[in-house]
């Protein structure tokens, strides 16, 4: 039986949805960072940091450790203190994930699921990161700088990438993946 020829997408046509995603993602990310840096965004950012520091103190207490909270500062009994500020609360990584999810062609229901579950996963990891930095800082200032500035930052982005990957897998399995060429 003769079959209708399946249209063969050109190289550029195949790249179109990817370019569309990349542009939309970059736009959402820059817009998100811009909103965070506005005065109302900064207020939310600081309040969120204080909340995360209190949660970290509670977790440390549950595991038998001791720490005191002063605003967004977590202080050890020995005198070492670490302040959560300038993106230490994971808000920039959250903006990254949100931008990727919002830019990806999927239903709003799945996007809402991805935003909620992804944010929760990032923040669970971020609290673990903050607590680990609290203890690394008491051990060595140099390794604190390494872990804080480089290792944990990149691990958080790697985790965000994998969270997004898992979410795309779920979108794909649900059959809700929309292709620009279809």
């Amino acid at each position, binding site marked *: 039986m003769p079959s209708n020829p*399946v249209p063969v997408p050109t190289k550029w046509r195949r790249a179109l949805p990817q370019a569309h995603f990349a542009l939309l993602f970059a736009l959402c990310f820059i817009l998100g960072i811009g909103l965070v840096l506005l005065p109302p965004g900064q207020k939310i950012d600081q309040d969120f940091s204080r909340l995360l520091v209190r949660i970290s103190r509670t977790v440390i207490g549950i595991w038998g450790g001791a720490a005191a909270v002063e605003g967004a500062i977590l202080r050890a009994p020995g005198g070492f203190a670490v302040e959560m500020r300038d993106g230490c609360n994971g808000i920039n990584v959250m903006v990254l994930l949100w931008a990727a999810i919002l830019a990806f062609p999927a239903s709003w229901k799945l996007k809402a699921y991805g935003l909620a579950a992804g944010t929760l996963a990032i923040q669970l990891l971020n609290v673990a990161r903050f607590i680990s930095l609290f203890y690394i800082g008491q051990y060595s200032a140099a390794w604190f700088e390494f872990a804080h500035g480089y290792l944990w930052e990149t691990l958080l982005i790697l985790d965000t990438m994998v969270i997004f990957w898992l979410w795309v897998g779920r979108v794909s399995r649900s059959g809700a993946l929309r292709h620009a060429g279809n």
Partner: protein
Amino acid sequence: MPAISLSPPARFLLRGSVLLAALLTLWWLVLINPLQSLLQAAAATGGAWLFSGSSELTITDAANGDWAFEVPIEPVVPPTPPGAAPQQIYSIGFDLARADAGGFTFGLPVFWALMLAAPELRRNWRSLITGTFVMALLEVVLLLLTVKILAYKSLAQVLHSHDPVGGWFLRCGEYLAVNAIPYLLPFAVAIVLHRELREQMFQWAAPIAASAPPARNGNRVAGRGSQRRIAVKRN
């Protein structure tokens, strides 16, 4: 004992985390100083193209190890008080903490870790080499861009500028150039250059495979990559 089968994202996460920790430690202990010296030399050379004026961009090491920049920028400072003669500025100097300068070299080990953690390394060694050069180039461009933003920020302070919109743009630019892009760059370059990783992650390849040109046996086969085993029989 049954072998543990991991999904591609889990495998990438596990391998990526281990490789990131290992390669970043290597960078921190061994590579950071040579890479920073190379970056400084490349930025001084590249700065001659980006910055024009009667003076040249200079980067020197301050006594505490920070990088001292002298950036050619030539605005006319309005007279204060009014009636006095306007002043011509020829350059602006500021320091960049050595730790912040290091932020423009750590993208290389991160990129290597991602490429090594991604599937099909044998087919992507060229991307690994190409990406290393692309990363090195982009890091220099990013440093020069940051220097330009910081120069304009310093200038705004000298001019006592209270422009909220301009200030917000400078702040946003500085945040992106220092705190966001250096971290995201190796991930973006890895995704762009590593086809299998991109296809697995975004799963855009499935409909492409189904619409690929037919092979001699009547099946439709996709091109290279993880989808090349997909074949759709057309009656």
